[in-house]
């Protein structure tokens, strides 16, 4: 069985395109809008939690996931593919980095690792490209806060603010007008909610929208006190209540 599929399923078309990757982009563009905004003191990741039925228990599904205490990730496209990439990124941040250097990888290194995984799915036998685009937000001491997009092709770009998925074009235009160099985290969260509002179809409240923030270190989340030189995690998810409070202020 294996030898029948030991060749790459992603092959060039006469015009020089890799059609499978083009189709993967289609899967992304049909997906729910997600966006990321880099502020001077943090990064916001936001997405809509679109449910097909009111019977779905929305609180049990998490679309914004953390990879390391200081790096978080959101997607547009196929949920299952995202899950797999999150698991691989979490594992790889330990096996290929923390277990060697005893520190978590900087954002760019983590992003390059995920990008390599996605590229390998475009040049290996018997696999298809991942049907997701990712927005990765993180913090490291040498580069500060950063936001990256990773595509099904394995390309990655750093962004100041961007959106992916269904309403990405209009969202990006919206963000271009609103983004400034000296945005603070709270402003960025405000702009993220405003931008999402444009593309959200149903009701918009703390249970239909997910916000993840990479901001100041939350030492109270460490679980212990009194150890010097250890900082708490920078990634945290806003609770539905916190989101509702901010939506009221819009």
């Amino acid at each position, binding site marked *: 069985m294996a030898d029948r599929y030991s060749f790459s399923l992603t092959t060039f078309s006469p015009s020089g395109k890799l059609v499978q990757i083009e189709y993967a982009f289609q899967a992304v563009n049909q997906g729910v809008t997600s966006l990321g905004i880099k502020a001077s003191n943090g990064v916001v990741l936001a997405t809509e939690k679109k449910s097909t039925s009111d019977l779905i228990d929305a609180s049990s599904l998490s679309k914004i996931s953390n990879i390391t205490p200081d790096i978080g990730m959101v997607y547009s496209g196929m949920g299952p593919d995202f899950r797999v990439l999150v698991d691989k990124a979490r594992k790889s941040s330990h096996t290929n980095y923390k*277990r*060697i*250097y*005893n*520190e978590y990888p*900087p954002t760019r*290194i983590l992003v390059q690792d995920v990008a390599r995984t996605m590229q390998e799915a475009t040049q290996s036998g018997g696999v298809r490209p991942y049907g997701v685009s990712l927005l990765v937000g993180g913090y490291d*001491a*040498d580069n500060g806060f950063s936001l990256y997009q990773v595509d099904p092709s394995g390309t990655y770009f750093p962004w100041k603010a961007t959106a992916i998925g269904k309403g990405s074009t209009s969202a990006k235009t919206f963000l271009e007008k609103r983004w400034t160099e000296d945005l603070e985290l709270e402003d960025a969260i405000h702009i993220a909610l405003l931008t999402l509002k444009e593309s959200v179809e149903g009701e918009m409240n703390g249970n239909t929208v997910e916000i993840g923030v990479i901001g100041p270190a939350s030492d109270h989340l460490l679980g212990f006190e009194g150890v010097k030189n250890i900082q708490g995690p920078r990634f945290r998810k806003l609770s539905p209540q916190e989101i509702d409070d901010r939506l009221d202020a819009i």
Partner: protein
Amino acid sequence: MSDPSSINGGSVVAMVGKDCVAIGCDMRLGMQALTVSNDFPKIFQFNNAFLGLTGLATDVITLSEVFRYKVNLYNLREERKIEPETFANLVSSTLYEKRFGPYFVGPIVAGINSKSGDPYICGFDLIGCINFAKDFVVGGTSSDQLFGMCESLWEPNLEPDDLFETISQALLNAQDRDALSGWGAIVYVITKDKVVKRLLKTRQD
């Protein structure tokens, strides 16, 4: 021909001072009783981390090349210099990879973190167990003698020039009591803005 860690001989020592660290080594390379070379330094520099390697000479050479390769790739990938603490963990994981067929070495790391300015020293056993110390670390065939010298001579917050004198006396008198170490010595004194390397005048026996 039995204990790999005492065929070639050699010693290293590192100490912490006030906003400075010092690391020193002897220069001997021998084959048991025969001295083959008096120009075999055992300290290697990787960005702002200094590694002192004693033990089986072939492993000293191989490991210095392995770490040069790993640190070069780190620099290219991360686009930044490696810090002493990070390098120490790299040494530890590299040694543990060979847990059941180890390198016969006794490494020590010394350096100053370029961001915080904090001095850092540590030692390891041959399979990578990190011994983090706030005062001094020792290694090699005269490690027992070095422990005695350091324990009596070292005091906290020594200025760079005083730290130099202290570490030099510790190294010299310890290696003179060891048949397999000696034949010259090198001491590096490292501060935030400069590194001074001195060759000590020692007994050539």
